[in-house]
C-alpha cells in the first residue's frame, strides 16, 4: 500500500538520535507545561518557539509535536490529581478522574488515561491513512445544513444525558450560546455585544473562559477550605490498574477512538467537543451510569482517548483543506 510505504519512509527519516532527542525535550517540556494549569500546549509551544529557529524543519516540527502531546498528557495529570484542568481539553477528565483519585485509584486513572491517549492517537493515525481522504470529501459535499442539525442534536444529547438537573444543564447551554454571540458577526462584520470595546470585538476568548471558569473557580473554591490543594499522591505500585478497570476501559477506549477520529475529520471542531461527546456517549452506553461523576473509569478512558484521537485527524492538512471552502481558516481557539 502506498500509505504504508510512506509511513515507513517517514519513520526512517525521523528515527535518528538528533530528532529523538528533540522529541524527548519536547515531550518533557510539554508534560511540565501541561501539568501547570493555565499553560496549555499553545503557550508551551510559544515559549520554546525561539529554540526552533535554529533547527531544521523536521526536528522543529517533531519538538513542537512532542510539546503538544506532552501537554495533553500533563493536562490530564492535573485534572485527575487536583481537579484543575491543565488545559481546555482535559476539562472532562476532571469530573471522574478526580473522583477516582479521591477513592485512592489515582494510579489506575493516570495509567488508563495515558494508555487510552496512546491507543487513541495510534488508531486515529492509522485510520487517517486509510479513511481520511474519501471522508473529507464527503464532509465538504454534505454542506452546512447537516452540520447545523448535527450540532443541535449534540447539544440536545448533552442536555439529556448530563447528570444532575437537566434544567440547569439546559440553562448553561443557553448561557453558552448567548455568550458565544459576543464579538463580530461572522457574515456581516457588525459588532455584537461589544459595548464599543475593541477588546471584545474578537469574541470572548475560549481559552480565557475555560481557564477562568474551571481553573480560577477551582482555586476560589479551594480557598474556602483553609487547607492546601489536595494533590493526591499516587504510589508507584498503585499504578497498575486492576483487571476490572481494564475490562471497563477497553470498550470505552474503542468508542473514544472512533468518536475522536470522526470529530477530527469535521473541520474546525475542537478537541474539547469530542471529549464532551465521548463522555456523554460513555454515560449512555455504560451499564451503571450513576457511577459517572463518582469515579467511573470509562469517564476517564473515553474522553482522553477521544482527545488524542481528534489530534491525529485534526492535524492532517487534508482535513484543513476541507475547511477552507467555508471561506474561513480553522478558528484559532479551536486549535490549542
Amino acid at each position, binding site marked *: 500500500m502506498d500509505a504504508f510505504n510512506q509511513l515507513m519512509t517517514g519513520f526512517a527519516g525521523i528515527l535518528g538520535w538528533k530528532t529523538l532527542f528533540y522529541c524527548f525535550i519536547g515531550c518533557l517540556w510539554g508534560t511540565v507545561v501541561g501539568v501547570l494549569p493555565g499553560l496549555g500546549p499553545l503557550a508551551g509551544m510559544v515559549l520554546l518557539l525561539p529554540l526552533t529557529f535554529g533547527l531544521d524543519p523536521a526536528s522543529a516540527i517533531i519538538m513542537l509535536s512532542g510539546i503538544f502531546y506532552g501537554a495533553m498528557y500533563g493536562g490530564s495529570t492535573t485534572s485527575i490529581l487536583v481537579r484543575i484542568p491543565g488545559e481546555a481539553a482535559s476539562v472532562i477528565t476532571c469530573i471522574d478522574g478526580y473522583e477516582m483519585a479521591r477513592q485512592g485509584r489515582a494510579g489506575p486513572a493516570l495509567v488508563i488515561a495515558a494508555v487510552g491517549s496512546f491507543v487513541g492517537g495510534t488508531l486515529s493515525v492509522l485510520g487517517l491513512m486509510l479513511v481520511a481522504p474519501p471522508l473529507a470529501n464527503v464532509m465538504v459535499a454534505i454542506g452546512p445544513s447537516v452540520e447545523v442539525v448535527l450540532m443541535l442534536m449534540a447539544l440536545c444529547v448533552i442536555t439529556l444525558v448530563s447528570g444532575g438537573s437537566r434544567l440547569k444543564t439546559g440553562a*448553561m447551554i*443557553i448561557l453558552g450560546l448567548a455568550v458565544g454571540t459576543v464579538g463580530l458577526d*461572522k457574515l456581516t462584520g457588525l459588532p455584537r455585544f461589544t459595548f464599543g470595546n475593541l477588546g471584545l470585538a474578537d469574541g470572548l476568548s475560549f481559552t480565557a*473562559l475555560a481557564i477562568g471558569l474551571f481553573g480560577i*473557580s477551582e482555586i476560589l473554591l479551594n480557598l474556602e477550605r483553609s487547607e492546601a*490543594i489536595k494533590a493526591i499522591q499516587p504510589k508507584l505500585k498503585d499504578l497498575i490498574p486492576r483487571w476490572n478497570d481494564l475490562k471497563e476501559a477497553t470498550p470505552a477506549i474503542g468508542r473514544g477512538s472512533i468518536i475522536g477520529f470522526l470529530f477530527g475529520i469535521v473541520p474546525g471542531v475542537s478537541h474539547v467537543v469530542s471529549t464532551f461527546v465521548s463522555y456523554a456517549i460513555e454515560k449512555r452506553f455504560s451499564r451503571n451510569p450513576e457511577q459517572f461523576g463518582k469515579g467511573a473509569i470509562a469517564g476517564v478512558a473515553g474522553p482522553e482517548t477521544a482527545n488524542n484521537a481528534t489530534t491525529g485527524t485534526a492535524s492532517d492538512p487534508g482535513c484543513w483543506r476541507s475547511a477552507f471552502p467555508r471561506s474561513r481558516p480553522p478558528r484559532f481557539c479551536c486549535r490549542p
Partner: protein
Amino acid sequence: MYIGNIILVILNLPLVGIFVNLLRIPYGWLVPTILVISIIGVYSVSFKAADIWIMIVSGGAGYVLRKFGYEMAPLLLALVLGDRLEENFRLALTMSGGSYATFADKAALLVIVAIAGLLFILQACAWAFGYRKSMADEAERA
C-alpha cells in the same frame, strides 16, 4: 508525532510521582504561581489585555455558578458550538435562498434526526420504566 506518543507513555508512567510533586508546593506559593502562569498563558493566545479581564470575571462567575450547583462544561460546549452553529445556519439559509426546507432535504439529515428521535424515545422509555419500577417498589412495600 507517533514517536512522541511512544516516548510519552514511557516517560509519563514512572515519572508521574515527580510531576505530582510540583503540586505539593505550599499553597501560598502555588496559587499565585498558578495565577501568574494562567495570565501569561491566556495572554499568549491573542495578546489582548481584554482576555485577562475575561478570565478574571469568568472565574468569579464560575465560582458563583458552581456554588449554586451549575455545571460549567455544557457552557463551554455551547460556546464552541454556538459560533459554528450560527454560521452554518446562516450559510444553509443563504444557500437555499431563505427556505427552511433545506434542513429536511438530505438523507443524512433524516438519519441524524432519526437517531436523535431514537435517543429521546429510549430516554422516555427508561424514565417511564424507572417510574413504573418505583411504583412497583412502593406497592410492594405498602
